[in-house]
């Protein structure tokens, strides 16, 4: 019997998808369905803002900032 599930289809890089999967491992509160390809998954609609903020925060920490130096 086919079913329809409400959610947000997320398209992203494999690296970002890996991070989302990692977040979901903690409490299983993000993902509705892992679509098993490299760059798609369906998440809960209510979690988008939360997820974006978390990604931004973590990526800012991880990515090296080369251009912020004030030296010549």
């Amino acid at each position: 019997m086919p079913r329809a599930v409400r959610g947000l289809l997320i398209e992203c890089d494999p690296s970002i998808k890996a991070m989302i999967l990692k977040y979901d491992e903690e409490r299983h509160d993000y993902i509705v369905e892992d679509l098993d390809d490299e760059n798609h998954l369906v998440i809960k609609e209510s979690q988008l803002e939360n997820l974006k903020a978390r990604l931004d925060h973590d990526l800012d920490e991880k990515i090296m900032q080369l251009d912020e130096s004030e030296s010549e």
Partner: protein
Amino acid sequence: MGSEDSQSFGVFSQIRGEHPVSIADLDEYARRQWEGVLGYMVGTSALSGQRDINLSKGVKQLLQAGHLVEIRDRRVDITKDGFGFVLQDVNTQVWHILILYVESAEAIGMDSVEVLSFLFLLSSLELGQSYEKKYLSSVQLRTLADLADFGIVYQETPEATRFYPTRLATTLTSDSSALGSTVGSSLTGPAGQPGTSGTGAGFIVIETNYRLYAYTSSPLQISLISLFTTLKYRFPNLVTGKVTRQSVRRAIDMGITADQIISYLHTHAHPQLRKHNAAHATSNTSSIPPSVLPPTVTDQIRLWQLERDRLRATAGFLFKDFTSLQEYQAPCQYAAEIGVLVWKSDRKRMFFVMRHEQVAAFLRSKK
């Protein structure tokens, strides 16, 4: 509507006043009023301590109605739309305001058709000429008074019998660069000093190493530049700074887009920058149009914006748990035909749609 032919293009005032208003005066008036409006939006007039342009209630209400500013706790806060607005060139801004004005005209009991026809009349007037007010209808007189607040027309007193269009009005339907160069450059002149036009439009130099030099002392322009630049030094007629990842991210967080920043830099690029890049482009024979700004800088600003949007989200419904491939294929194909299909996987027998109503009905009808 249908005004008579003789009035379609305005009626010259026959009175030769003792104090004819010169074009320079009109430019200065237009500059002051328009900078006042922009300054009100970004909140510079309070900071710089320059003579506050007295903005009428109508102007403030219009900016608010157009969602360019919001009033919170009696403080003026610029909105995302407002940021986009202030970074545009003057001609686009004037059109934006006029469109807002026409849209809001009905709400304050004016016939928008009449307002619109007056705007077209305005754009056909001649700079430096004065025109009779007595042929205008009451709605048009009201429009005239409102536009005077923006610096689009000038009248000595609200009771005067004639009015002058300023450059903001007369270049409405002409090439934007004409307006951009005159008002743009005078906007950059020292505050309170008559516009030093004729020196070219631009004042911003940006180098391939992201360093930015802006030859201006206008508090308005400086605060606009500081929206997306980390400013470092300020001299009497020059500010320098650097466009950094951080400063661009800050701007994007406020709702400014990379394209808005680039178009602002492009509009106000220093003539030297234009000359240099034009010469560079002719020397190599490629067919790529010469870009005024260093491509590394524009590309990087766009990349910094892309960094923010690492994922694309589409709201909708996932259809799954189809028992056979045939059962899956028909609705999936149907979804594609009606244009709601976003993603599908034949292997997993799943597909994702933006809207589910029709697909669900299709599935039910198949049973």
